[in-house]
């Protein structure tokens, strides 16, 4: 019985595994200063931007790929990757009609209909979407509506052209180009991404969203997102991602930076569904991402919510530097691993300001032969008086071939700190499933109920539209994992 169900699940296809036949404008394989100059020239970048890249690249050359994570994989050959791939024709798109119809079809398959987005403009629960396809941003919706409020929401490349002063001022504050191996690599070769600036006193009237899609073979995706909330500003930001099914491992090394000024708040939600590889662990995305926010000034708040179901290997620690007094950092995470997926994910909360507070809720779910690790650092610096942290790390095991691990680090340099850590490990019980079935609920629905119940505290934090998608995704990712 157990095997049958497992079989059925395993044969379940990754629904987003199709590829799109689009002519691409690509850089030659490999990485050197010429490639970086090529990317920079393609994007018509100012001199300072190229300097930023080259500096990062020179640093990166002296750095070693981190090995401390609880994952094992064959390290990517960085000379075997295409660092720039853009759908052709690459020209300024004035309207949706000019977007390659193949591309539009892809997005429809993915469930983002740009046309519909456009038609629905003005309706309340709208989301503005920036779509990044391989290396370039292809379309940002609702730009005009947002501009009326003074909100800048555009691709990173456009921001470099149109708002160089903002990019120059904020880029690298939260994630310095020398921060770590992958962040340095990204800083050298990033091709596009999203940029968002919410001016003083403005609450974004809609959720902003970036949709990332890797399509071309042999490419890496290195996008960069920069979100700035000025004084008293607020924005809720969503990120989604998928990739085609390929036998090779593709590298995704992104950087996301969030900066909040006085009284500002940014909520960042991710549903990460990169291709996880097949049932034998072949293929899949290496998701090595650096996400960090800094509460630069007093009373500001940064909140990360993530639902991670995809990628072959995940290395990701969305963090908050609590510099301003009374600032608040939050991390809510559900990480699911199945088959041979490996995830080493968690957060860092760095308390510098006084009366700073942080909350960490992490829910790991492991099934199949997978390994799922929580790694988190709570650091209270000297002078961060009355800092508080609450951490809860729960692990749920399905079956007996998978692993769940917790690596909490706590460093306290101020005596007034209050730090709490709770952790539990449980198994989805045959008993729970039998109980549900005895009430008429089938296996699939029962797992959905139990898992969603387990993740409730995190799913509750997601915006409505995303929560529904996340619930469906959880059910699909785990279907049949318990027999």
């Amino acid at each position, binding site marked *: *019985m157990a095997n049958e169900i497992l079989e059925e699940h395993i044969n379940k296809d990754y629904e987003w595994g199709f590829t799109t036949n689009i002519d691409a404008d690509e850089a030659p394989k490999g990485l050197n200063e010429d490639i970086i100059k090529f990317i920079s020239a393609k994007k018509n970048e100012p001199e300072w931007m190229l300097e930023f890249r080259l500096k990062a690249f020179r640093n990166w050359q002296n750095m070693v790929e981190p090995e401390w994570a609880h994952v094992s994989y064959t390290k990517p050959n960085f000379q075997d990757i295409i660092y720039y791939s853009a759908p052709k024709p690459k020209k300024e798109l004035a309207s949706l009609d000019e977007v390659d119809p193949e591309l539009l079809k892809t997005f429809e398959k993915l469930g983002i209909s740009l046309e519909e987005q456009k038609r629905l403009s003005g309706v309340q629960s709208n989301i503005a979407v920036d779509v990044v396809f391989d290396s370039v941003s292809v379309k940002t919706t609702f730009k005009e509506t947002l501009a009326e409020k003074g909100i800048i929401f555009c691709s990173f490349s456009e921001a470099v052209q149109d708002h160089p002063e903002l990019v120059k001022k904020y880029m690298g504050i939260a994630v310095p180009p020398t921060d770590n191996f992958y962040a340095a690599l990204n800083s050298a070769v990033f091709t596009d991404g999203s940029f968002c600036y919410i001016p003083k006193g403005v609450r974004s009237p809609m959720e902003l969203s970036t949709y990332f899609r890797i399509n071309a073979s042999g490419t890496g995706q290195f996008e960069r997102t920069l979100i700035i909330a000025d004084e008293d500003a607020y924005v809720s930001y969503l990120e989604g991602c998928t990739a085609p099914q390929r036998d090779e491992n593709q590298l995704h090394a992104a950087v996301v930076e969030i900066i909040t000024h006085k009284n500002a708040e940014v909520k960042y939600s991710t549903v990460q569904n990169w291709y996880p590889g097949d049932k034998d662990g072949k293929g899949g995305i290496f998701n090595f991402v650096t996400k960090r926010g800094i509460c630069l000034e007093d009373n500001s708040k940064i909140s990360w919510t993530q639902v991670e179901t995809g990628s072959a290997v995940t290395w990701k620690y969305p963090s908050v530097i609590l510099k301003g007094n009374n600032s608040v950092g939050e991390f809510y995470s559900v990480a699911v691993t199945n088959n041979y997926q490996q995830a080493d994910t968690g957060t860092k909360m760095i308390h510098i300001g006084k009366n700073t507070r942080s909350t960490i809720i992490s829910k790991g779910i492991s099934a199949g032969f997978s390994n799922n690790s929580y790694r988190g650092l709570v650091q209270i610096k000297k002078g961060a008086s009355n800092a508080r942290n609450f951490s809860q790390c729960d692990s749920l095991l399905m079956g007996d071939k998978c692993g769940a691990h917790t690596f909490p680090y706590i460093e306290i340099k101020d005596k007034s700190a209050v730090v709490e850590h709770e952790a539990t490990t449980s198994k989805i*019980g*045959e*008993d*729970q499933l*039998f*109980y*549900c*079935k*005895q*009430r*008429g*609920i*089938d*296996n699939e*629905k029962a797992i959905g*109920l*139990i898992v*969603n*119940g*387990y*993740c*409730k*505290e995190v799913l509750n934090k997601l915006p409505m539209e995303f929560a529904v998608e996340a619930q469906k995704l959880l059910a699909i990712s785990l279907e049949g994992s318990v027999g």
Partner: protein
Amino acid sequence: MISIKNLHASIGDKEILRGINLEVKAGEVHAIMGPNGSGKSTLSSVLAGREDYDVTEGEVTFNGKNLLDLSTEDRAREGLFLAFQYPIEIPGVSNINFLRTALNEIRAYHGQEEMAAKDFLALVKEKSKLVELDAKLASRSVNEGFSGGEKKRNEIFQMAMLNPKLAILDETDSGLDIDALRIVATGVNKLKSKDNATIVITHYQRLLDYIVPDFVHILYKGRIVKSGGKELALEMEAKGYDEIKREFESSEL
């Protein structure tokens, strides 16, 4: 309602049920008594479709269908309800959400539409009164942090909500004080009708003071060794199971 013929079941190499015969008709209440280890809970688990047990012989007909061919959830949808001896906790899933899912799954099976939210809530209100279940418990996570008595009452509340044809109460009296016992029994009695049937599995006679059975069966070593009316329960209570043990120990069952 249900007809059990020569039912044999084992767990691993160990045979636990060794030829059960039982016929329950609509409108009847049957009590199954017996000492610990006689196979009482195994019988309820096998009927409900727990996968740990292998049925090696025999047949069970439920509403004219071969029960043993049905999946666990289809047995439930056909109207078989098991009130668990140890109800399971499901953290984060509200009782209401759980029951609504269950009810609608059962309705879908019978080709009925989902119940409207308003009607569902009215039903919750009506049925929770029946078992004197605090309205707060209905919105809490399934059995999480419930006391022993609350868990048992919640089982009967679920039974009231799902309105089964055949309810099997597995040691529902265990761990209940006398007040809780009375409430649970009253609930069961109110749910009784000429169209449904109840099998009460118990170790002690005292529950049968409240839920009066039409038939009493004594289970020993995986077989029904004695059947009778409600007076058989009193006899057992007075004499204890030792006599049964002596009588049937030697007869190599």
